[in-house]
């Protein structure tokens, strides 16, 4: 029913909440706190939930129609006038169709624009591959001046949104469509660029972002049943990446698996590998991500299974990496 089936995928009951609701809630608060905050949407305000801001602050909400490129440019102009624009649409359109405007318009002038990319990853499900965004992190991450964040749940999305308003410079953060498990709390410390230790153990590390952090926690549960106690890192910030956390994981736990709802090219796995390859640590690593393929229309939980993004997949990957390390 438009919800990732916790019993099917997670093996455990969690409270489920929308990350985009956190975005909407934080925006409404920001509207009150800072008159410079403005919001733009491209005919998806009902879906990205920016409509809540629009209803409360109609003069600071700009409906741009179905024109993502124009929306990005307009946000740049508003930022040049001293405003803090948040803009939203589906991630596939912002990172794809409007990439040039993001690169040359936002980033090159270091414009203070915040991109709240909704419906990222494959959890958009039934809309099919045209709307599934599995390349967004990979194409935004190389752009100079950008901070790229993939929050894992409601609270982290809320904190990301609030932090973005305080941060001077371009930010891209990605939310999913579905309700996802709430695995952090209001009080969990959140500092962009600093990974959160979700669980600790000596037997390899799972580094995950977004929806896959919950999957990683489930994978850890599975692994404990096999006598393996992994470390689990919530790597919400893909850029700048927490190098220290990656290097410590390699040094302390001997194997690394990354898990992301993204193509295996260019995302979290690539970012972590970039750090490891230039380090002195030679540890086995596996990337759990979408292999070079389009998925299809279907319930998100089915797509996660089809893409190989289940806790079982993550657990198996870490076990394989540890075995390889022992050889």
């Amino acid at each position: 029913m438009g919800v990732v089936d916790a019993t099917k995928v997670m093996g455990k009951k969690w409270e489920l909440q929308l990350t985009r609701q956190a975005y909407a809630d934080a925006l409404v608060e920001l509207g009150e706190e800072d008159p410079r905050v403005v919001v733009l949407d491209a005919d998806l305000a009902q879906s990205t939930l920016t409509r809540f801001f629009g209803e409360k602050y109609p003069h600071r909400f700009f409906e741009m129609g179905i024109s993502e490129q124009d929306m990005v440019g307009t946000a740049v102009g508003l930022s040049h006038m001293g405003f803090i624009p948040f803009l939203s649409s589906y991630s596939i359109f912002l990172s794809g169709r409007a990439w040039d405007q993001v690169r040359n318009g936002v980033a090159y002038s270091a414009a203070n624009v915040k991109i709240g990319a909704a419906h990222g990853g494959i959890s958009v499900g039934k809309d099919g591959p045209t709307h599934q965004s599995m390349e967004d992190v990979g194409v935004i991450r190389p752009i100079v001046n950008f901070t790229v964040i993939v929050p894992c749940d409601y609270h982290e999305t809320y904190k990301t949104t609030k932090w973005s308003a305080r941060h001077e410079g371009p930010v891209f953060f990605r939310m999913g469509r579905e309700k996802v498990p709430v695995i952090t709390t209001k009080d969990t410390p959140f500092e962009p660029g600093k990974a959160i230790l979700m669980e600790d153990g000596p037997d390899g590390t799972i580094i995950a972002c977004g929806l896959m952090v919950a999957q990683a926690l489930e994978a850890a549960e599975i692994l404990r049943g096999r006598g393996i106690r992994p470390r689990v890192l919530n790597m919400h910030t893909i850029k700048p990446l927490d190098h220290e956390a990656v290097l410590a994981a390699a040094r302390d736990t001997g194997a690394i698996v990354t898990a992301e709802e993204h193509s295996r090219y260019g995302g979290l796995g690539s970012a972590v590998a970039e750090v490891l390859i230039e380090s002195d640590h030679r540890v086995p690593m596996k990337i759990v991500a979408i292999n070079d393929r389009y998925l299809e229309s279907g319930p998100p939980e089915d797509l996660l299974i089809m893409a190989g993004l289940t806790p079982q997949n993550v657990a198996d990957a870490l076990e394989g990496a540890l075995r390889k390390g022992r050889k």
Partner: protein
Amino acid sequence: MPTLNLAPDAVFRMAQQIRLDVCLMTNLTNSGHPGGPLGMADYATWLFANVMDIDPKAARREPRDRFVLSNGHCSAYNYAVLCRRGYFPPKWLLRFRMSGSPLQGHPNMIYVPGLEASTGSLGQGLSQANGMALGARLKGQHDVRIYCNCGDGELQEGNIWEAVMTAAHYKLDNLCLLVDFNNAQIDGRVEDVMGIEPLGDKFRAFNFHVIETDGHDYGKIAAAYDEARATRGKPTVILFRTLMMKGVPPYEDNFKWHGKPLNDDELAIAMKALGFSGTKDELVATYEDWPTQPPKPGPIWAGAGAHH
């Protein structure tokens, strides 16, 4: 001090100085785009001298009018006019497009005082100008006006028409779009490469107030800006009919000058046409002599400070 309030002959001399700047800049760096800058020099210099409320001594003063060069490849014009308006010393112009220089091939607002946007990838400036116009309105800066300059070939970009819809939808009467309507782009005549006519009708259909006029006639240029300012409830576009490479008669109205720098022989012809009788070295020396603000009149722009 909102404007310089120059007489037409003084604006003409300032424009001719800027044309000379552009020819020398592209010659020295052996790259860049002289054709568009020479074509837009009359109508845009009138704007910078006599229309826009700007302050070179306090470039970021609020409130102020803004100019967005959407066709960023005409950067040489923007740099030269900012320089002659007093934002930075003429010496800077000599290192256009060279390493270590703030004057990038296409403008970056972070490096150069007076630039209001970073542009270069075509079709994006009007969206940014719309954002500025919306922002000015939101800030209650009701007298602030936003000017955006586009090439006519640039209007082939889809993003422009998204932005045109936005400007009309939000009734941005504080926004004025200037089109350098020279019917020339890299691969040939605009009408041959990808026709944009009937351009005035297109803008009218998109709910713009449309002014079509001669981009080299100062009386008509001044009247067009006045009409744009007086227009309420909708944005204005001024279609300035211009000649690429205007001011150097042997090269006028020839699209090959879109992105071709002048070699030394061609520069000599241009200098002569623009009224400078010395050598290239003598011309370069005039820039070195002006290290600081405020700018002094150039060899051609003598008397430009005379107010009428």
